[in-house]
């Protein structure tokens, strides 16, 4: 695995206020990396420093081996980005906008532009002026704009902001395609937990400019014990026995239990033999939201 982006003890102050405090993290090839945090935690500032819109206070950011501080033009060549809303020139057509950006790189052909337009499904509207576009279309044009030069790293600040569920789904599918097929790395920021959970491989939780924790989403499946909810008919006399053997806790129309996979199968057998009906067995995964709240302590 090669490291595509690394932040090395990055800090930034505006006035006397420290907005980013000693932030270090790295993103690997083909990974979707999330920056999660409440509003004002410093996600956008971090992203702006990555793409050179803001100067670094201290530390360094390295993209594909090139430092943003010392070698900005080389470093930024590897990056395609949308910072907040993808604001384009309203009085130009979608296509003219893309041509504008393509002129700032070497060797982007007309075919390449057409190919990208096809990819983001904007072919029908590409010759209309951007001011006639819906938010979803603008978002797709924004995505097209950052894919023109075959970047190695996509940086998307709140890419699903203001989109309807269909639009969010679409962006998610695009990202999946790009990371799987094109081996792109992606950084997304959001304050929406559920969404990050669905998109990202790893998530960094940021609060008040500090890195609190980095969570791997796939972790959940590897945990040995999980929590299960059983909905059953009246347990009657069996209850006492179960309590002793399995440490269950009553809840709703049934009970909750911490157990391994095999144990669950045994328990079901036991209950059936005791002539208790089982209506539902459900695995309760701890949601990211619960973890997030646990970690940030709010």
């Amino acid at each position, binding site marked *: 695995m090669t490291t595509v982006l690394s932040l090395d003890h990055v800090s930034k102050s*505006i006035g006397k206020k420290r907005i980013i405090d000693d932030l270090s993290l790295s993103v690997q090839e083909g990974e979707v990396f999330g920056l999660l945090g409440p509003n004002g935690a410093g996600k956008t500032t971090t992203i*702006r420093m990555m*793409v*050179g*819109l*803001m*100067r670094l206070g201290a530390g360094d950011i390295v993209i594909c081996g090139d430092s943003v501080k010392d070698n*900005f*033009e*080389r470093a*930024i*060549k590897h*990056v395609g*980005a*949308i*910072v*907040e*809303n*993808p*604001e*384009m*020139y*309203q*009085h*130009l057509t979608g296509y*003219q906008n893309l041509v*504008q*950006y393509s*002129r*700032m*790189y070497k060797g982007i052909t007309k075919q390449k532009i057409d190919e990208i337009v096809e990819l983001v499904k904007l072919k029908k509207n590409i010759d209309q002026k951007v001011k006639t576009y819906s938010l979803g279309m603008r978002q797709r044009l924004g995505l097209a*704009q950052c894919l023109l030069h075959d970047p190695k790293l996509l940086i998307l600040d709140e890419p699903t902001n203001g989109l309807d569920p269909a639009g969010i789904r679409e962006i998610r599918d695009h990202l999946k395609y790009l990371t799987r097929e094109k081996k792109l790395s992606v950084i997304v920021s959001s304050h929406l937990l559920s969404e990050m959970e669905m998109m990202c491989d790893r998530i960094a939780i940021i609060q008040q400019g500090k890195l609190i924790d980095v969570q791997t989403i796939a972790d959940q499946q590897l945990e040995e014990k999980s929590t299960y909810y059983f909905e059953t008919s009246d347990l009657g006399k069996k209850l006492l026995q179960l309590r002793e053997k399995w440490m269950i806790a009553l809840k709703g129309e049934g009970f909750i239990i911490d157990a391994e996979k095999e144990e669950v199968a045994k328990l079901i057998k036991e209950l059936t033999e005791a002539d208790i009906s089982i209506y539902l067995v459900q695995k309760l995964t701890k949601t990211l939201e619960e973890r997030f709240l646990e970690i940030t302590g709010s």
Partner: protein
Amino acid sequence: MFNLIRNEWEKILKKKSTFVMIGLLILAIIALSGILKYVDNNDESTGDEWQADIQQQIETDRENMEEYGGRQLGTYYQRNLAINEYRLEHEISPSVESNVWTLVDEAKMLTSFIGLFTIVVAAGIVAGEFSTGTIKLLLIRPMSRTKILLSKYLTVILFSLLLLAIVYGLSSIIGVILYGFPPDDAVHLAYQNGEVVERSQGLQLIITYLLYSIDILMLTTMAFMISAVFRNSSLAIGLSMFLLFVGNTVANLLAMQFDWAKYLLFLNTDLTVYFDGMPTIEGMTLTFSIIMLTLYFLIFHALAFFFFKRRDVAA
């Protein structure tokens, strides 16, 4: 760099306001030609006895000079006398009949329109990108900020040259249609360093146009600087236009009282005085003015580039 300028050029030319500006300019040229033609038809030509007329003019000028010949009027009469005497000596009749150059010469007053339009473009070209947020997608490209700002400035200059070319070209074309080609002996007599020199009128007018546009260049540069430093196009437009219209008058008023006024930008923008006429404050020379202009120019750009390069884009 070429591509960046092409981008900026495209962004300007695709705007509706640009078409309105160019349209207004063309209308103004047509209106001006119409008015001149109308006035010209009502004007009675003085005819063949131009030598006697000039002789008479010389005499009145002499009397006036003795009577009112102060610091400024004196040089004015001196200039008139010198030119008129030169006419008699070399038998060059003042062309009383209008020709194509008359129109082109009159059209030079449209340069203040050009100034106005160029200031609007210069004020918007940086600040506008900040207010629409498009600056973000522009600055995350493998191009240094210096190059981006420079391409914007050069585009503004190109735009003003386009407008100048429209005025000069269109007024020449209309002039030829209305008056036909100019007579061969039509020369411009200029008074330079106390001597009278002959110049071809077409060339003289190109020089005049370029000299007039120094005003525009400086104010445009200032508007551009304000636009880049404060990211506020209204401030840039307001301040620059205010100076465009009253700057000269105020500077001239100050010049009557104070000697330090010669360091003001506006007393140095009109270089025509060094080619044909006399400077506002005695002792000012072409070199002095050029140095002052260069200084102002460099300061404006130093400010613009310094702030644009360092700025954190947070909006």
